[in-house]
């Protein structure tokens, strides 16, 4: 009996009952996170933004460089779909498209709470650039993203900053926008291939917006005001400026009226704009010198955000309660698009030889059936897949799959069993190369395909642990001379030992953590390095002491750079930032499990 009494007494003393204060509210939040995590796990959320930013750069570069001559002023260009954004209650603003007569209305952006705003269609008619927001962004922040004209997931072109009114250059290699990337608000030009952003000098000293390219791509027109934004009598004019900042010209110069929202026709070399006065406003056009004004619409609707039909024969604009409206350039033929509620129209150009109807989406790899041999010479079960661009040279329609290896008894194993990750770059449903088998620690699945190193090829995150915090392993496609390989990324020796830490040992395959629970918050993200190259940052933290009102948050940030399947530790630092408060953009994939 003495032993029993001692066990009761000492276990009671050793045990530390938990404090349930505030736990119910925590459980509510945790439940919400679980639901988000499930979405991610099932591939829905990951599929939304998997294209990867720089992957999109390269894909787009290839896309447009194949067109040697800019299709801009080709006389045979015709008019395609009208693309516009529409507010959906509870779901933000979605991207829609319809024919010029309103036929074939369709949603282009994936379902989900997100914003797709200010679309503009690329000169070859295939790609839409939008201002894109997701709920986890801080208010006011957005990214530039591209969406295929046939609809689909957005690929991020930038990290989150302030973006307005993106517009393609005539040769499709650049995108001008109004905004700020940490600098003063102004007109900037993004080079699509390199991701380099340059300001248009002189535009960040005044209030500006709505850039639009000249037909030859050397100048940009925009709305601007030298007055104060708080002045109710502030006057706006249409300016033009060379991309290098020279030749700044006020084209309208009307102190008593405002001209805004210019749109430059590459076919007619005329600029449409909204004259905003005490009445409803009017849609006017003028030549590129600011003369020869004509009225295209002066009716009761308050016109806004005009855009030219690519062939220059008509204009579309936002007509208040009427939604999207079209009118001939000479002011005749006013028409509303049926069911086209929305705003900020863009008009798809159709260069010679292309069809009004967009091409079907690229063939996606079919999800392998349980037990099916998908080209590995062995059978898998519990197969999950994620779309990405793992070898950009192969184009779209690529997927990575993760599945458990079925043992000889034919059962689908549970618990710690071997798992294989593999990549199908040709989109035919048969994988082209695979990783070595590795042991799954529970709940393994293809999790996301972010571009961690910014080389245009996505990496693969495999979920390795399913708990309230998700453990992921990182794989990279290494393009060897003979055959590409999918390798589990390792940490270059000596790992983080020189920094006095032991979290990422040299030669080891690291496991990263995403999510949070009662005391822990973990995240991964990417940042552009000062010396070039993209940084991969793992933040892991916890509040301590547990169950104490005096608990403080302590976190460690480990910064890596990924090269050839090896992560090099660049820095380790302590921080008091709770990772759940960070914008965890996940290197182009949305890995934010906190919001």
């Amino acid at each position, binding site marked *: 009996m003495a*032993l029993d009494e*001692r066990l009761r007494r000492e276990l009671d003393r050793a045990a530390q009952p*938990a*404090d349930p204060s505030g736990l119910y509210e*925590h459980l509510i939040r945790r439940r919400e996170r679980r639901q988000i995590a499930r979405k991610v796990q099932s591939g829905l959320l990951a599929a939304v933004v998997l294209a990867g930013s720089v992957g999109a750069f390269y894909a787009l570069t290839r896309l447009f460089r194949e067109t040697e001559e800019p299709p801009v002023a080709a006389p045979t260009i015709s008019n395609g779909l009208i693309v516009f954004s529409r507010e959906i209650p509870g779901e933000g603003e979605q991207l829609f498209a319809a024919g010029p007569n309103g036929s074939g209305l369709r949603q282009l952006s994936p379902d989900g709470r997100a914003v797709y705003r200010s679309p503009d269609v690329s000169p070859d008619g295939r790609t839409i650039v939008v201002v894109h927001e997701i709920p986890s962004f801080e208010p006011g922040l957005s990214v530039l993203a591209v969406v295929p004209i046939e609809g689909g997931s957005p690929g991020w072109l930038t990290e989150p900053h302030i973006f307005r009114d993106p517009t393609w250059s005539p040769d499709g290699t650049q995108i001008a926008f109004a905004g700020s990337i940490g600098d003063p608000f102004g007109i900037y030009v993004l080079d699509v291939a390199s991701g380099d952003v340059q300001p248009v000098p002189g535009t960040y000293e005044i209030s500006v917006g709505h850039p639009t390219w000249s037909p030859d791509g050397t100048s940009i027109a925009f709305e601007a005001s030298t007055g104060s934004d708080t002045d109710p009598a502030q006057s706006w004019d249409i300016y033009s400026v060379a991309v290098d900042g020279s030749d700044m010209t006020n084209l309208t110069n009307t102190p008593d009226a405002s001209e805004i929202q210019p749109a430059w026709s590459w076919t007619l070399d005329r600029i449409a704009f909204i004259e905003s006065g005490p009445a409803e406003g009017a849609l006017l056009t003028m030549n590129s010198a600011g003369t020869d004004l004509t009225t295209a619409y002066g009716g009761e609707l308050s016109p806004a955000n005009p855009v030219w039909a690519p062939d220059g024969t008509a204009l579309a604009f936002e007509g208040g309660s009427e939604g999207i409206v079209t009118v001939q350039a000479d002011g005749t033929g006013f028409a509303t698009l049926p069911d086209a509620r929305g705003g900020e129209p863009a008009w798809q150009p159709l260069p010679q030889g292309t069809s009004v109807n967009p091409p079907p989406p690229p063939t996606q790899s079919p999800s392998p059936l349980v037990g099916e041999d998908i080209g590995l010479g062995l059978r898998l079960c519990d197969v999950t897949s994620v779309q990405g661009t793992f070898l950009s040279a192969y184009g779209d329609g690529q997927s990575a799959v993760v599945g458990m290896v079925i043992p000889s008894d034919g059962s689908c194993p549970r618990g710690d069993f071997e798992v294989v990750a593999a990549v199908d770059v040709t989109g035919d449903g048969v994988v082209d190369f695979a990783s070595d088998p590795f042991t799954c620690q*529970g709940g393994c699945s293809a999790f996301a395909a972010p571009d961690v190193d910014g080389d245009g090829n996505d990496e693969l995150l495999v979920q390795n*642990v399913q708990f309230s915090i998700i453990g992921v392993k990182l794989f990279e496609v290494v393009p060897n001379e003979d055959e590409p390989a999918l390798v589990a990324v390792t940490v270059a020796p000596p790992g983080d030992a020189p920094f006095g830490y032991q979290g990422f040992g040299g030669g080891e395959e690291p*496991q990263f953590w995403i999510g949070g629970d009662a005391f822990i918050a973990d995240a991964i993200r990417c940042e552009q390095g000062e010396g070039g190259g993209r940084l991969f940052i793992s933040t892991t933290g916890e509040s301590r002491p547990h169950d104490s009102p005096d608990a403080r948050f302590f*976190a*460690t940030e480990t910064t890596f750079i990924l090269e050839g399947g090896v992560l090099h530790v660049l820095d380790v630092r302590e921080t008091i930032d709770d990772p759940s408060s960070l914008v965890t953009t996940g290197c182009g994939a949305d890995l934010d499990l906190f919001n």
Partner: protein
Amino acid sequence: MRVDEIAIRQFLHTRYPRLVAAVALVCESRPAAEDAVQEALLRAWERSEKGEVIESLNAWVTTVSLNLAKSGLRRVMAERRARSRLVRDFVPETSGDRIDVERALARLPRRQREAVVLRYYLQMDTRKVAEVLGVHEGTVKSTLFRARSALAGALGETDTEEANDSGTR
């Protein structure tokens, strides 16, 4: 029973503190224990909302959290390396007795550890322990017998009594 906000709040203020402590004794990780119990509670909640009947929330959550803590151990082991910097300067206060008991417990096979904690810390009778662990009552008794023998040796005690007790609940 129906698992709703009232049931959850009641559980949190009555059962949760000691259950976390119990699971922590078994899995040797307080964060993993908190995580496991909270996860089990959420699962009970979700299942109840889907119409599943949970006879005893306490027994259900105890069983599931112990099971979850098993898989959670892997995470703890992996995390331990990654978090060594974070936790190395956070050492809870200990007493000599506590270290003895914890060390002795840690040397037991997991099932024996579970049985000991449920029996002596949560003060369940052997029938209840059997229910939670999903084994026969006789198995619990023999498990406890072996566990006590091992603990007696480790703690320098003599195992003299108690095999067929009924416990207190």
